[in-house]
């Protein structure tokens, strides 16, 4: 899950609700994490769907469709999984869909550079259903590494169709579509994974008993083996899917007891049986690879050299910080140019609107409300908030596509472990740059529930796209130096956010979420050359469209409210002045003022509107001749009594305060708990308030 449209709070958790039209084939797209599954999905469906280069990016399913030879196919991109039998919440969703979702075919996308590992999942699936197609992706990468995969031999050895793909180049997609089209309704049985004789003999009678009670088309042998392995979560999902408890059937229960006795007699504990079943799968995978793959053993020397350099002591931290600083430098530089252009454009459009309203004879109050209220906030949101995102996202997406982010997580795992957390939290923090709601959903990649909760509760310490333009705008006004100093200062802000993340994670591990760090398996995919053109176009378009949409839905009504509040009189003053005056004492205590606090409160629907709302409120209390450019921003803020101290406190509070409404709702959804949602609200707020109060106290 990356940083573009689908991960920004809009549809970041579609789930899999399959209701295709009758006659449409449903094709599930399965595979290990980071095998280019989403690239295949995008290439087939044309749906703009971001693909990233780290493990477990697809945190929830996505649906798309394509037409091939006059027939419509629904494609379900399900979360990446190493196995049907592992435990992460994310992978269980994938497993349930594959096992009981009833897809017409399962396409397993595999990585040609480590096919043997990928075949574990393939064989688990062919054991379940014969309607499997193996799509060996990254053939181009494999060729560069002198790995040769013979897909015909692979197909013969597995007993299911296999096609070769290089999805980023669009090669092999037609073959895949043809293989899907020509897959028979009941294909010949695939290669059978053979278990030790004692296991086979114990499972056979149980499978026969199950076959008598299961709905037709269900694989009794497969389920019998899972019952013997006592895979409880899978069996619970099966009971739910079939609508009855098959284990309660008298004959099944008797057969199960008999099978267990037989296994015990042969010396198989449940643990030994589970081991034996993976051993059987890998023995089969090794055998298949002997027929289909030719490669030189050992690591890729060029990749290894790069990795060894980047993980050197000193180099790794320096690389991380300088990459951030460079990204911010380019962002600030580029945003200035874009911002000035947008200001000019929007001012001109506002003028036209204004004249149109005069022309049609709109009442002055309405005219003022629409132009001074709604339009002005919209213009601020678009021209101040949009440009930094439009530059930042393509840059960050390039780092992501390059494969750098898992390296950062690798190097940061040690400090996270010391704080009782998981290194993958670094990845969820990166997702948080895009949107904290997406970051919270992304926490599903963390296996341990305790560590996942820590990552969820601390995600908003990473400033999302709705917040960091505020830093850039304020730095432009208050930073003593030029762009370079601003970029360093912004890097410092992110660093502070990271320190808060570590500190709060540590504190949580010692208090509310007491515990030690558990295990970690983190796959480091190879460095890959990013598809620069695609990245820029896709993230730019996605961001632009999304931000404009959000600006209209959140900023327009908020602008309206502020304008009304500034123009409705209560007592001696306006409603706005009454509210801000009431909040002022608290604001002052935190080094800010009532207007700022009111803007943060009104900004709960979307962080993008906080700064524009402040400016609106300040402008509403006096006449404002211009609303364009950094100079105007400086004029408004200085006139409203801002100092460097105010700016520092606003930045600190923006870095650490309540998450936006979308993020809070996502926390509620992910944790299923009001208590933890409240914690997600209070923890950053308390941290930010403490920091601000400290600054206000020490800096009179």
């Amino acid at each position, binding site marked *: 899950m990356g940083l573009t449209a689908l991960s920004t709070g809009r549809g970041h958790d579609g789930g899999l609700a399959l209701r295709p039209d009758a006659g449409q084939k449903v094709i599930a797209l399965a595979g290990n994490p980071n095998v280019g599954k989403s690239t295949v999905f995008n290439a087939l469906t044309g749906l703009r769907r971001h693909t990233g280069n780290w493990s477990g990016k697809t945190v929830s399913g996505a649906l798309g469709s394509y037409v091939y030879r006059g027939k419509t196919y629904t494609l379900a991109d399900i979360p990446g999984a190493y196995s049907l039998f592992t435990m992460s919440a994310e992978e269980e969703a994938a497993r349930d869909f594959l096992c009981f979702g009833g897809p017409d075919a399962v396409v397993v996308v595999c990585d040609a550079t480590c096919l043997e590992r990928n075949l574990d999942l393939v064989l688990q699936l062919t054991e379940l259903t014969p309607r499997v197609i193996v799509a060996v992706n990254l053939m181009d990468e494999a060729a560069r590494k002198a790995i040769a995969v013979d897909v015909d031999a692979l197909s013969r050895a597995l007993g299911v169709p296999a096609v070769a793909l290089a999805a980023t180049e669009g090669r092999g997609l037609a073959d895949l579509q043809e293989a899907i089209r020509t897959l028979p309704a009941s294909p010949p049985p695939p290669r059978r994974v053979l278990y030790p004789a004692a296991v086979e003999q114990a499972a056979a009678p149980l499978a026969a008993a199950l076959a008598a009670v299961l709905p037709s088309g269900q694989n009794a042998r497969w389920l019998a083996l899972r019952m013997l392995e006592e895979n409880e979560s899978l069996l619970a999902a099966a009971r739910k899917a079939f609508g009855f408890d098959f284990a309660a059937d008298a004959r099944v229960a008797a057969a199960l007891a008999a099978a267990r006795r037989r296994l015990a007699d042969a010396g198989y504990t449940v643990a030994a049986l589970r081991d034996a079943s993976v*051993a059987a799968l890998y023995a089969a995978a090794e055998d298949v690879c002997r027929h289909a793959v030719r490669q030189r053993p050992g690591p890729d020397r060029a990749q290894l050299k790069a990795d060894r350099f980047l993980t050197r002591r000193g180099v790794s931290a320096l690389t991380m910080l300088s990459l951030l600083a460079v990204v911010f430098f380019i962002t600030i530089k580029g945003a200035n140019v874009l911002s000035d252009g947008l200001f000019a454009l929007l001012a001109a459009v506002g003028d036209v609107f204004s004249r149109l309203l005069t022309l049609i004879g709109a009442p002055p109050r309405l005219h003022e409300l629409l132009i001074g209220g709604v339009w002005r906030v919209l213009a601020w949101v678009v021209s101040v908030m949009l440009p930094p995102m439009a530059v930042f996202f393509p840059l960050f997406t390039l780092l992501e596509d390059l494969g750098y982010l898992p390296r950062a997580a*690798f190097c940061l795992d040690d400090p996270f472990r010391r704080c009782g957390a998981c290194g993958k939290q670094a990845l969820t923090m990166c997702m948080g740059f895009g949107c904290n709601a997406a970051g919270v959903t992304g926490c599903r990649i963390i296996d341990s529930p305790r560590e996942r909760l820590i990552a969820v509760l601390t995600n908003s310490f990473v400033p999302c796209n709705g917040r960091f333009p505020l830093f850039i705008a304020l730095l432009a006004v208050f930073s003593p130096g030029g762009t370079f100093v601003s970029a360093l200062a912004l890097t410092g802000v992110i660093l502070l956010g990271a320190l808060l993340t570590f500190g709060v994670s540590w504190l949580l591990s010692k208090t509310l979420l007491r515990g030690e760090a558990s295990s970690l398996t*983190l796959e480091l995919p190879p460095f890959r050359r990013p598809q620069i053109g695609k990245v820029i176009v896709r993230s730019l378009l996605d961001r632009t469209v999304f931000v404009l949409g959000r600006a209209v839905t959140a900023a327009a009504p908020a602008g309206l409210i502020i304008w009304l509040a500034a123009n409705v009189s209560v007592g001696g003053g306006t409603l706005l002045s009454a509210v801000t005056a009431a909040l002022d004492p608290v604001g002052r205590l935190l080094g800010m003022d009532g207007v700022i606090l009111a803007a943060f409160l009104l900004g709960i629907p979307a962080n993008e509107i906080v700064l524009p709302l402040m400016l609106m409120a300040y402008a509403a209390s006096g006449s404002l001749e211009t609303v364009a450019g950094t100079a105007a921003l400086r004029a408004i803020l200085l006139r409203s009594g801002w100092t460097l101290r105010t700016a520092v406190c606003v930045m600190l509070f923006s870095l650490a305060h309540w998450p936006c409404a979308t993020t809070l709702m996502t926390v509620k959804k992910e944790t299923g708990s009001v208590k933890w949602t409240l914690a997600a609200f209070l923890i950053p707020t308390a941290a930010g308030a403490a920091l601000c109060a400290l600054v206000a106290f020490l800096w009179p």
Partner: protein
Amino acid sequence: MVSNDLLSVPAGCGAEVLALHVDGAMRRRLLDLGVTPGARVDCLFAAPSGDPVAYLIRGAVVALRNADAARISVGGAAPWA
């Protein structure tokens, strides 16, 4: 074959997995990643602090924490050809 744990295998060496002394979900996860008895695992490079360490497991690079690597016994550690 002399038995040792994976943690003792230095970068630049590979070894054969003999047994996993890990239980529960992590055991299954390691097995599914291909850390099965008989599999070859190569030690590639360590994080700046020395923990975790990246290993080459069946063609893929996977990082394991030292505490977990210490519970995987291996044999026949030898430098790459």
